[in-house]
């Protein structure tokens, strides 16, 4: 009898030991999960401001309506469905179906505005709840259905993750660190205040202050949209830089999109053509080629060469755009009339090695490192692997791929007295100044060479193809260079072109450097004469319009002559 009792007691003890010792941690975890809840305290995402501290994006609260059908009686269903349909504009029939399902939880409408939420609250419908969430709201842009600087800023998806542009690049900085409250909760999910309680406060995200100017951005978007439509182009982009700092003042793309409605947008529009796509810069590259040759002492603006209209290099005969014999000309004339032969001869005069080192110095052999997500860049082959013909075509901007940021930063070296200003968009993160701004700038060419190049670029406006960009009062005080390069398809150049226009103003004390690129323009009459798509005809007027707005907005006056 005693043995039986001991066996029974022993089996009970063994079982108890099993639950209390071996299974202890698992059961304790299950129990914790039932009565302890960790509520996340979201961090407020940092806002983005322009250089004048205009807020470019605002955090707003949106609401989602949900129902608990199991808490709504059959008699109440019609009233609830009617109320939801009248306020939220949802289909009453589908709401009735949801309510009849008897489920515990179902969303009725997601992410609607405060006024609808207020109306719904006032109805006090049984079994209906509201859930609030944060959403980024961006300023309206120039075009209908667009937001300002959408391609630069990117957007934030419903999970709070930055997508594209600055929102993606600075996700960690903007998002901050969420906190939490860990506490006991009752059946109604109310906190039991006398239970144990631990809390970690959230750390809000930092604000970004950009070098962007919202007014100039708007003017750029407007002029670009008008220009692209007028020229029946596929797309276009504008990039404006502060010459002394490298800060981006405007970053416009057309077509663009509405970042407030990103889930209804064609994803191909999210890609930005300024930094995320490369193009052949065409004659704009002559600025880099001639500046390097002048700095190395191989040429001067007045060096005379003979231009018969073509040059044979590496077994290829390469022509000027007009295929004309220009006779004896100097390098100022070469730039004014954008002659390929002159650019090739300048490159040859300084030599391949020097030319390549200037490509490196001007930042065209590696990504610019701009602080925007998804920069794309195609490095040229190593100097030793480049053929003679590739050196020749690179000197006038064909056979070499760059993105707009790289190209503008390179031309900006001339505006900045020969120094390379690293391109950037963010000037401050919270109260911290962007370290790029505190670093010394790299001297690429001498100030004297930059000054000579500036004079040559002024001549382009006064005597060459840059006349379409003349801003009233600045005819003698602005610089320009046009560029038109054919677009290769499957290794063959087509009649479609990238048309571009670059320049800075005022010439001697530049306040901005601007690059306009138009892709595949089809200007009136260009089906008969494709040169009507040239940069000075398509991109130049857009440059002029934006520069005019900047002159007024920034109160720029010409230097006394």
């Amino acid at each position, binding site marked *: 009898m005693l043995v039986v009792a001991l066996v029974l007691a022993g089996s009970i003890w063994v079982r108890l030991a099993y639950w209390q010792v071996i299974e202890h941690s698992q059961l304790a975890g299950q129990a914790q999960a039932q009565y302890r809840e960790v509520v996340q305290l979201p961090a407020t995402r940092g806002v983005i401001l322009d250089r004048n501290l205009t*807020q470019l994006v605002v955090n*707003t*609260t949106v609401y989602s309506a949900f129902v608990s059908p199991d808490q709504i009686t059959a008699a109440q269903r019609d009233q609830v469905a009617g109320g939801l349909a009248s306020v939220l504009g949802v289909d009453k029939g589908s709401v009735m179906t949801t309510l009849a399902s008897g489920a515990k939880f179902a969303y009725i409408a997601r992410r609607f505005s405060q006024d609808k939420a207020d109306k719904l609250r006032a109805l006090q419908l049984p079994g209906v709840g509201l859930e609030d969430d944060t959403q980024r709201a961006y*300023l309206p*842009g120039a075009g209908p259905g667009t937001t*300002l600087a959408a391609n630069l800023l990117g957007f934030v998806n419903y999970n709070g993750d930055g997508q594209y542009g600055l929102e993606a690049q600075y996700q960690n900085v903007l998002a901050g660190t969420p906190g939490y409250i860990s506490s006991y909760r009752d059946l109604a999910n*109310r906190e039991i205040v006398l239970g144990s309680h631990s809390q970690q406060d959230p750390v809000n995200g930092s604000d970004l202050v950009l070098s962007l100017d919202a007014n100039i951005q708007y003017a750029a978007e407007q002029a670009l949209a008008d220009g692209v439509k007028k020229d029946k182009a596929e797309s276009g982009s504008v990039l404006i830089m502060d010459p002394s700092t490298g800060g981006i003042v405007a970053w416009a793309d057309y077509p663009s999109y509405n970042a407030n409605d990103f889930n209804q947008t064609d994803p191909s529009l999210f890609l930005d053509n300024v930094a995320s796509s490369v193009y052949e810069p065409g004659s704009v590259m002559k600025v880099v080629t001639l500046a390097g040759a002048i700095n190395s002492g191989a040429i001067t603006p007045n060096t005379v060469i003979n231009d018969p209209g073509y040059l044979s290099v590496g077994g290829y005969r390469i022509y000027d755009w007009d295929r004309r014999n220009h006779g004896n000309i100097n390098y100022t004339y070469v730039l004014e009339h954008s002659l390929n032969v002159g650019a090739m001869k300048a490159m040859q005069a300084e030599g391949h090695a020097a030319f390549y080192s200037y490509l490196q110095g001007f930042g065209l052999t590696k990504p610019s490192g701009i602080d925007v997500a998804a920069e794309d860049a195609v490095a040229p082959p190593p100097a030793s692997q480049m053929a003679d013909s590739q050196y020749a075509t690179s000197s006038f901007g064909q056979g070499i791929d760059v993105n707009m940021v790289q190209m503008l930063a390179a031309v900006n070296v001339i505006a900045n007295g020969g120094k390379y200003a690293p391109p950037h968009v963010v000037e401050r993160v919270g109260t911290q100044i962007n370290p790029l701004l505190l670093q010394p700038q790299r001297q690429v060419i001498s100030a004297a060479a930059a000054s000579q190049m500036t004079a040559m670029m002024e001549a382009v406006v006064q005597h060459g193809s840059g006349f379409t960009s003349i801003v009233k009062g600045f005819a003698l005080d602005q610089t320009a260079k046009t560029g038109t390069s054919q677009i290769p398809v499957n290794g063959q150049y087509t009649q479609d072109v990238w048309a571009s226009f670059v320049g800075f103003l005022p010439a001697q004390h530049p306040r901005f450097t601007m690059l306009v690129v138009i892709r595949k323009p089809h200007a009136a009459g260009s089906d008969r004469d494709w040169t009507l798509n040239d940069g000075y005809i398509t991109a130049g007027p857009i440059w002029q319009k934006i520069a005019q707005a900047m002159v*007024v907005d920034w109160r720029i006056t010409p230097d*006394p002559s």
Partner: protein
Amino acid sequence: MGRSTNHKRSNVTAQVSATHEEYVLTSTRILARRRLIVSGSAPHVSAPTRRRRRTRGFVQVAGSAAARRLRLTGFGHAYLGLGAVVIIGLFYLALAAQITQSSYQIAQLQDQQSQLIAVQDQLRYQEVTAHAPAQVQHQAAQSGLQRVAPATYVPGQPLAIDLGAPVGASAGDTTPLWMKAVAAVVNTLGGTRDVMAATTK
């Protein structure tokens, strides 16, 4: 007489030793120290280390005093303890109810706060949008305003001052000497510090 006095003293001592032991010990130590000072012994000689005794708390002292007066039995002690526990329990419940009520009020206020923040966000968006370039241009156009591009600029005049020239020594003080002397005297008497600083090299 003398015996009764002694008897009384011993009773008092016994009571004191039972209830105010620390008082007695302290008094004894003070007396001992006084004796040492009077007898001219070295004042820095410390007393031998004594074992610290647990001090009796107010509750124990009051409890034992009440028990003595009420002449409580064992059951009396139990009832008293139970009563105290019940009172403490009720006090705890009242406190818990109050805290729970407060926590619900806090939750309600947090709800209100989040709604007010939402309204604030909405107002901020309206404000920012009202100042957005698109809105400004739209309203300007509605008002019939348009941006005018300046056609000409006033030609710049050459500057009379050479801004590039190195900065030389500042111009000398042309104040007459007698005026400086008067100022120095007046300032010294009047004590005008900043004027003195300006006139003193």
